[in-house]
Structure formats: structure tokens, C-alpha cells
């Protein structure tokens, strides 16, 4: 019986494999052409001096050495690293907290969950340029809504986007406002916690805060871990919002000079695409290391 069926099953398997390749081909082609090849090219160009319009000249490790150690040629490289690190440190927790609070509150209401989900998600799908324009107005030192509100409370608001020390917290606030993705994923996580746990704890006399601290948060740990990892990766690559808010000037005393903005300016404005490629390789390695460290150090599962 086996002997009779083997050829046809082998045929079928081969046909399945072919179909599988055919279906994944577009995605694989996309990854190859638009991700792997450019990444490989960036790695190659990181060892050259290249302005995009003349032939690249081999430079060995010079770009890396100068970027990391020559503060005359790249006076703001380490500043861009500090700015980006501080941004990640502030914006990731801020957006996790607002995302969680939004999800928790939505989960509590009985009616109109879809409406609140939509409203809290809107900032994420709003065009970056529009977001920047809105916040520029909100933060305006003379006529901005935020400072007008603080004025009513008798507090003199800072010049949000004009004071170097305030710029990154101001950007983190925008990130917190745009936490719709974290909200959606937290909401899915909340729905995944069996109601029976809450019912059982209620029988034992637990109040809402105890339920939050002992059931909800621990069981959301895998969700939180995922959001921390993806949030840090995204924060280290922040570009759009700073570019639209500040342009190439990067804000007062370049306090909004994110790593990728710095890289972009060197590649496209200063004609140093070789050095910009080296910076992108450094960023890639950094993200890899940070992510690996998170996998080792941050608790991923709830261990009773």
C-alpha cells in the first residue's frame, strides 16, 4: 500500500513546496531587494569615502575610528548618542504607562470600547508632519495652549522647544500621546487574562489595586516585554518627529539631534555617505546588543 502511494505523495509534497515558494517569493524578494542588498551595500560603503556622486574610495576603518574618537570632525556624534539614549529612557516608559492606563480604562468601561480604541489610536495614524505642526502650536512659548493652561494655574511654563534641557522631555510627551499601539497590545493582553482569576480573588476579598498588582501586571509581563523591546528599537531610530519639528537645525543647541538625524545630515547634507553608512552599522550593532541584553536581563514570563 505504501509502495503504491509513495510516488504520488512525493509529487504532492514537491508541488506543495513549489506552491510555498511561490507564495513566499514576493515577501522574500522584497526582503532581499529592499532590505538585505541595501544593508550589505551600507556595510560595504561604511569602509569607503563616498559622496554618492563620485566613485567610492576605500578608507578601511577610518570612518569608524573618526566617528568614535575624533571629536573635531564629528563634534556632535556623542551628543547624538546621549540625546537618543535619553529619549529612549524617557519615551519608552512614558508611552508604556499611558498605553497601559488607556487600555486599563477602556477595559473597564462597558460601552463604546471601539470608540475609545479608535480615538486613542488616532495619534498613531496621523501623518507625522501634522503631528509636529500641532505640537509646535501647543508648545508655542507665547500663544501655546499648554503654557496658557499652566498660566491659569499660576505656573510660568517653559519655552518647551526652545530650552535645551526641556526638548527631550517635550518629545517624550509627544511619544506618550502617540502610545496607541501599546494601548492596543495591552488591551489584547488584558482580554487574554481569564476572568476566573479575578472572580476567585474577589471571593477572597481582594480589592482593585490588589488585583492590578497581583494578577493583571504579572500576567501582562510577556506583553510588556514585547512592548519594551520593540519600543526601545523604535526609540533608538527616532527621526521623523525631530526632523519635522526642527529640520536640520536639530533644536536649540542641537538638543534634539537624534542619532538618525545626525546620520541623515552627514549622508545627505554634508555629502559624507560613507561616514553615514558607518554610523548606521554602529546603530545596527548597538540595537542588536541592547536587544540581546534585554532578552537576558528583563523578565519575560511570570514565574509565580
Amino acid at each position, binding site marked *: 500500500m505504501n509502495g503504491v502511494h509513495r510516488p504520488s505523495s512525493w509529487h504532492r509534497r514537491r508541488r506543495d513546496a513549489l506552491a510555498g515558494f511561490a507564495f513566499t517569493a514576493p515577501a522574500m524578494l522584497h526582503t532581499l531587494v529592499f532590505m538585505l542588498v541595501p544593508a550589505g551595500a551600507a556595510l560595504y560603503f561604511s569602509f569607503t569615502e563616498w*559622496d554618492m556622486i563620485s566613485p567610492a574610495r576605500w578608507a578601511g576603518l577610518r570612518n569608524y575610528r573618526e566617528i568614535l574618537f575624533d571629536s573635531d570632525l564629528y*563634534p556632535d556624534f556623542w551628543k547624538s548618542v546621549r540625546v537618543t539614549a535619553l529619549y529612549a529612557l524617557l519615551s519608552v516608559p512614558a508611552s508604556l504607562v499611558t498605553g497601559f492606563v488607556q487600555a486599563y480604562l477602556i477595559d473597564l468601561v462597558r460601552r463604546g470600547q471601539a470608540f475609545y480604541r479608535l480615538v486613542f489610536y488616532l495619534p498613531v495614524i496621523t501623518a507625522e508632519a501634522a503631528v509636529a505642526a500641532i505640537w509646535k502650536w501647543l508648545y508655542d512659548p507665547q500663544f501655546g495652549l499648554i503654557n496658557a493652561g499652566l498660566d491659569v494655574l499660576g505656573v510660568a511654563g517653559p519655552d518647551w522647544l*526652545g530650552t535645551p534641557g526641556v526638548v527631550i522631555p517635550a518629545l517624550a510627551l509627544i511619544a506618550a500621546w502617540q502610545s496607541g499601539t501599546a494601548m492596543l497590545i495591552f488591551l489584547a493582553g488584558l482580554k487574554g487574562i481569564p476572568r476566573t482569576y479575578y472572580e476567585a480573588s474577589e471571593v477572597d476579598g481582594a480589592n482593585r489595586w490588589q488585583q492590578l498588582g497581583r494578577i493583571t501586571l504579572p500576567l501582562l509581563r510577556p506583553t510588556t516585554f514585547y512592548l519594551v523591546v520593540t519600543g526601545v528599537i523604535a526609540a533608538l531610530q527616532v527621526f521623523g518627529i525631530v526632523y519635522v519639528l526642527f529640520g536640520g537645525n536639530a533644536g536649540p543647541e542641537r538638543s534634539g539631534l537624534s542619532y538618525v538625524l545626525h546620520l541623515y545630515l552627514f549622508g545627505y547634507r554634508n555629502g559624507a555617505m560613507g561616514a553615514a553608512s558607518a554610523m548606521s552599522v554602529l546603530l545596527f550593532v548597538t540595537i542588536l546588543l541592547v536587544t540581546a541584553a534585554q532578552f537576558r536581563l528583563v523578565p519575560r514570563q511570570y514565574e509565580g
Partner: protein
Amino acid sequence: MRALVRWVAATAAVVSLAASAACGGDSPATEKVVEFWYYQPTPDQSKQIKQLAKRFEETEPTITVRLTEIPKDDYNTKLSSALGGGRGPDAGYLDQPLMARYANAGQLAEVPAGTITESDFYDGALRTNKISGKLWGIPLQQTTVALFYNRKLVSTPPATWSELVAESARVHRENPNLAGVNVPKGDGFGAWLFPAFVASAGGTMLDESSRRIAFADPPAQEALALWRKLLESSPRQITNSENPFHKGLAAMMFSGPWEVPAIRQQFPQLDFGVAPLPRKDVAASNIGGDNGVVFGKARNPDAAWKWLRFLSDATHNAEFSNITGNFPTNRKAAQAAKINTDPAFKVFVDQLETAQARPTVPEWIQINDEYLAKAIEEGVDGGRSPADALADAAARARKLLGWQ
């Protein structure tokens, strides 16, 4: 399966057909096409430039100008990518400080002798096209800055640096909620304005023939000290509001002619005047603008030069710059341009006579944006002494240029 193959083949045929149609295919041998890239103007300006191109085609029946509009912010990125990929345009705009980089990379065609008469053009604008003694482009339009003042707050515009400081202090003293001047910041724009002040104090930025950095010399220190002094009567908390001059929060600003139509349209209640930049020792101003270049791989360089000569000649240069809101580079065109009858614009035309060309080293943008801007930031807002801040910038520039 066979049906699938047929479907794929048919689709591929349609796609390739569409692609070749989009590329326009090959033009008849007699017709010469000039693909010209320039900054995307407003729809109205775009219509006028197309009409200008049509009039050129009428005088040169064998040439077709194909205009490609690219948003200004993306222009340099797109251009260098296209040229790097070997599929660039025949001719186009090129920002003044990029001339050296493109010429040295072998991407530009040299201007054939006899294409233009050099003495017809403003010297500052023409010189931005000269790299090591050779001419690589034709200046098409130019711009500069002047002093804008609010007539309600400033009755007579200050003519000298000391009058400027006094006037700014008076405005802020009489009303602490107002700033005297919207003081330039340490950014690319501020660093672009800076040479005008340095030149007014008798200095320059670079001496390319002797390979010496001059922007840390006393004139530059004095220029930076002036801006810092102005900041005392012009708090950033006031001027960091959007468009502080336009809204009447700052009594004066240094800016270019593009503000004139913008203010008249969007802030019609603002009663403003334009005056020459206040001077220390000599009258001076800075320069910006765009040159027309023909790229090395152009298919029809002769036709491209004819088009650029048309845009820069005495009859059409004024029309062209009127459309784009800049100034003619051709002196005869400037005489004829309607901007001469508008007093606000007249100031800029006069200022162009004293405009200082930017250094032509290919690294200038990096020096301007990364090093000079930083020195201005530190020296004006950061409280470092102008001498120290500029000395650092000069040391960095020296290293980058290899002028040890």
C-alpha cells in the same frame, strides 16, 4: 498552470509597455530633449514657468524642454541619487555651495566659451560658479538678506551696529514683553547670515589661495559679539514663538526678500520697512541662490546651454526671477525688473552689489552647518567667549580641509 503562465506573460507585456510609454520612448532624431530639474514652485508659478519654456521652444523649434519639479527639501538628495545611479537630468538647478562638490566629482560640464558675457552678471553670483578658475554654471537667480523693521516700534532704521544695539535696547526697555531683534541662532541659516556681518567688520571667512581659515579673526569675533549683545535685549522666550517679527513680538529681523510677499499676504496688518543691513566699517551682505548647470552625461549639452542662456539673458532673467520670487543675476535684467519700483525690493537689489560669495570648498556645507553653527550657538546663546568658540570651529575646519 498554462493559464497562469499566459496571465503572467500578458501582465509583464502590459507593464513593460506602460513603462516605456512613461519614459516617453525615443524622440525623433531631429528633436532635442532637455530634461531640466528645478525646485517645485507653487502651481501658479509652475504655470508661468511652463509658458516661459514654451516661448523658448518657439524660438528653438528643434528643442523640447521637459520640466521636472522636485520639492526643494528633497532636491539635493534626489539629484545625487539620480546622478549616482547614472540616470540624472540633462540640466538643472544647483545650490551655490554644492558647485564645488559636483564639479570636483566630474558631474558637471564646463560652460563652453562664449556662452555668456561674464561682465553682464553680478560678481557675487557669478563667482559662485567658478571653481579653480573655471566656469561650471550660469547664475540664474540670487537672494540676500536685509534689515526688516516694524514701523510702529522703530521710526528710523538703525544704519550702524551701535545704533542697532541702542535701538534694540530701547524697544525692550520700553516694553519688556517685546524683543528688539529676532537674533539669528546657531543653525545653518544663522551661519549663512554670519559672513555678511563678518564682512562688514572688514573680515572674510576663508582665504582659499593661502589655505587659511579667517573666521576666527577679530572681525568675526566682533560680529559674534554683536549678536550676543543683541540677545540681551531680545530674549529667546519671546522670539522662539513662531514668526515673532510678523506678529509684532520682535521689532527687527534679518531676512530675505521671500518674506515681503509672505508678510503682505499673511500679516497684512504689519506695517514694516526694509533697510540695508546695519554696518560696522563697510556695507556688506551675504548671498544665496541657484545656478543653472549642465550635467556631464547630458545627451544634448548644446541644447541645454541654450535653455540656460535663455533663462539668464537680459530679457528673460528678470521675468524668470520675478516668477520665482528671487532676484535677477543679470545686471541688465535687474534694471528692467519690476522689483525696482517696489521700495522694499529695491533695498535688496542695492545690497546685492555688496554681496560676498561663499567659499567654494566642497566641504563648506559641513563647515557651515556643523562647526560654524556650533560656534554661533556657543558664542551667542551658550555664553562662551566668541574668540574661543570660533577658534574651536576654525581648528575643526582646518582638520577637515587638511589645511594644517
